[in-house]
């Protein structure tokens, strides 16, 4: 932890203040070449046995669940899902919101932490961005098939139908189409552009042959000249600046699907910030779930350090607490509004037939991250891993509570109906988990899982002026405020003048 201190140099006569030394982001002073070797080694060396042990079942689950599940669905009809007339959204939209939320941590790490100059992001941003892409792919499957007749999915695109009627641009569902497709496109561009210099690194290490040609094509002929870096850095900054409001907008727009409808329990203004915080919360949990094992399997402990895990645990604690606040505020507003339908909606969630979902949501999302107040818990990888798993589960239940726990009990008693998913629902959801992990494994196998260029940049000697400081007192230490020095100077001048 950042606790090593040094005192200011003795040449100063003023008050000595301790200076916190910056935590090293790359441990053991690894060289540039070591970084290249270690990260490229992940995809150049033979994959460890565990990779195959995970990849084969995951890809089978993906093929059966997503491939088979969708063939069955399309050839039979959406009636095979458990959706009913009242709970018409059911699991498909629960899963859609769940997966879209997972993606948000990737963009947060790559864009927002970049803009706020949190250099620790460099070791984890690539994998987190990859997660974003794969999660959005998984998410996209659900609404695409939930439209019913999937061959009419092109109705979502802004083209008129046979009667010359256009899409309803005033509908949050169409906003969602634009938000999610823009999000996917921008994330892909961000991810790919960030990877170009690293693909060039791999290209330059390959022996001539098919691999070299393939990596060469995707590296676009990158040479690493400063005339390229200069434009490249500007492009990266611009993409980060564009992705930051985008990531906040995507889950806000998803929440509009709910919040703009006149349904008790959904029609609240707290939804956009509550959804965004929840998305970041769930996304970081998924990053930890995947990165902690990957770090061990590929020996990346010097690049993804305990500091990274500590920071992510703190973000989970923060966003989890925000989510907890939102849950309680929802209840309070329902009570304070005095609206009987609003109060009844929440009574139904807490004490109705879905009480177990509400209890799971509360305990997993609000209570379990509270252990991260303690440093010993943040430093124990087992605890971190278990909490991250709890959060993954809890965030899925949150969407279940919001969707099923509301639609099962709307305005009229004639609408009241309980919901349970069909085996096909469960199969497709499991399939998307398999698909997500399969895509992630393929990513580890073929692409650089850590941003090589940025990690090198985070080394101390990468700053061309790093050794200049050795000859000067540490500029970070302010011993006396500037105005005091000025008054001293003035006083001495006055006394000189007098004498």
């Amino acid at each position: 932890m950042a606790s090593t201190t040094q005192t200011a140099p003795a040449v100063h006569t003023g008050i000595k203040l301790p200076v916190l030394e910056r935590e090293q982001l790359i441990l053991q002073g690894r060289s540039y070449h070591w970084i290249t070797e270690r990260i490229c080694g992940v995809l150049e060396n033979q994959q460890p046995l565990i990779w195959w042990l995970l990849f084969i079942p995951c890809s089978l689950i993906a093929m059966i669940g997503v491939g088979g599940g969708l063939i069955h669905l399309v050839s039979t009809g959406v009636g095979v899902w458990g959706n009913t007339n009242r709970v018409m959204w059911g699991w498909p939209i629960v899963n859609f919101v769940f997966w879209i939320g997972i993606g948000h941590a990737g963009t947060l790490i790559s864009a927002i932490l970049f803009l706020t100059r949190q250099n620790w992001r460099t070791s984890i941003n690539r994998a987190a961005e990859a997660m974003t892409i794969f999660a959005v792919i998984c998410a996209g499957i659900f609404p695409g098939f939930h439209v019913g007749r999937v061959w009419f999915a092109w109705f979502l695109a802004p083209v008129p139908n046979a009667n010359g009627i256009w899409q309803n641009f005033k509908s949050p569902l169409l906003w969602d189409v634009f938000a999610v497709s823009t999000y996917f496109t921008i994330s892909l561009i961000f991810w790919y552009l960030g990877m170009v210099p690293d693909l060039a690194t791999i290209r330059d290490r390959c022996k001539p042959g098919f691999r070299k040609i393939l990596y060469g094509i995707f590296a676009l002929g990158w040479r690493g000249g400063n005339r390229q870096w200069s434009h490249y850095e500007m492009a990266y900054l611009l993409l980060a600046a564009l992705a930051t409001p985008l990531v906040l907008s995507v889950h806000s727009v998803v929440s509009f699907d709910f919040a703009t409808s006149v349904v008790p329990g959904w029609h609240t203004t707290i939804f956009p910030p509550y959804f965004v915080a929840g998305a970041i919360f769930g996304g970081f949990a998924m990053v930890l779930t995947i990165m902690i094992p990957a770090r061990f399997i590929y020996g990346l402990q010097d690049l993804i350090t305990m500091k990274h895990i500590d920071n992510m645990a703190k973000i989970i604690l923060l966003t989890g607490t925000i989510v907890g606040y939102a849950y309680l505020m929802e209840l309070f507003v329902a009570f304070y509004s005095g609206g009987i339908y609003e109060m009844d909606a929440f009574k139904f969630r807490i004490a109705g037939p879905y009480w177990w979902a509400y209890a799971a949501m509360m305990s997993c999302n609000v209570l379990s991250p509270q252990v991260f107040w303690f440093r010993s818990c943040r430093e124990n990888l087992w605890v971190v891993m278990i909490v991250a798993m709890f959060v993954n589960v809890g965030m899925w239940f949150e969407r279940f509570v919001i969707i099923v726990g509301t639609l099962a009990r709307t305005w009229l008693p004639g609408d009241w109906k309980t919901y349970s998913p069909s085996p096909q629902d469960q199969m497709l959801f499991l399939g998307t988990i398999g698909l997500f992990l399969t895509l992630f494994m393929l990513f580890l196998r073929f692409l650089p899982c850590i941003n090589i260029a940025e990690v090198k940049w985070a080394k101390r000697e990468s700053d061309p002026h790093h050794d200049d400081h050795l000859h000067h007192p540490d500029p970070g230490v302010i011993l006396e405020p500037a105005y005091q020095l000025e008054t001293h100077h003035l006083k001495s001048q006055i006394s000189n003048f007098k004498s």
Partner: protein
Amino acid sequence: MSTTRKRVYGYLAEFKSAAALYKAAEKVRDAGFKKWDCYSSYPIHGLDAAMGMKRSILPWFVFCGGITGTATAFSLAYVTQVVIYPTMVQAKPANIFTIPAFFPIMFELTILFSGFTVLFGLLALIQLPRLNHPLFESHQFHRATDDGFFIAIEAQDPLFSPNHTRELLTAIGGDNIELIEEKG
């Protein structure tokens, strides 16, 4: 020496560290060279100034791209919803007061178009993709993407001379100086 004529691309010199590259770049800049570049495996901060380069003009492209996106979304929504086929749904009017409902899509398309402009504007500015480059003929340039720091001065620069440029590169601390020739 082979007998086929080869076009000389320029000199490539290696430097020990980012700091050495930075100091050398200042000297090459002061010598008045224009067609040259510093190569490193990561972006070195402050090197733009040391090389006498201007700020990238990419933001202007992106600004225009973003405005195009906003205008596209607005016209798409307004023309279809208000002009061609006015639809009254969700009790929202089909006139100028319906514009706030178009904001989310206007925002998303602004971002989308800007993102595409970043990608294609960048590729245009750095003149990529290209399949090959004379520098890839070098026997040491592959280290530029690993742990090498290089300066290449092109023969097309008016100040380039085979002897003096080599001397300059030696004087500013360059090692392994190599004459890069294009494959004839």
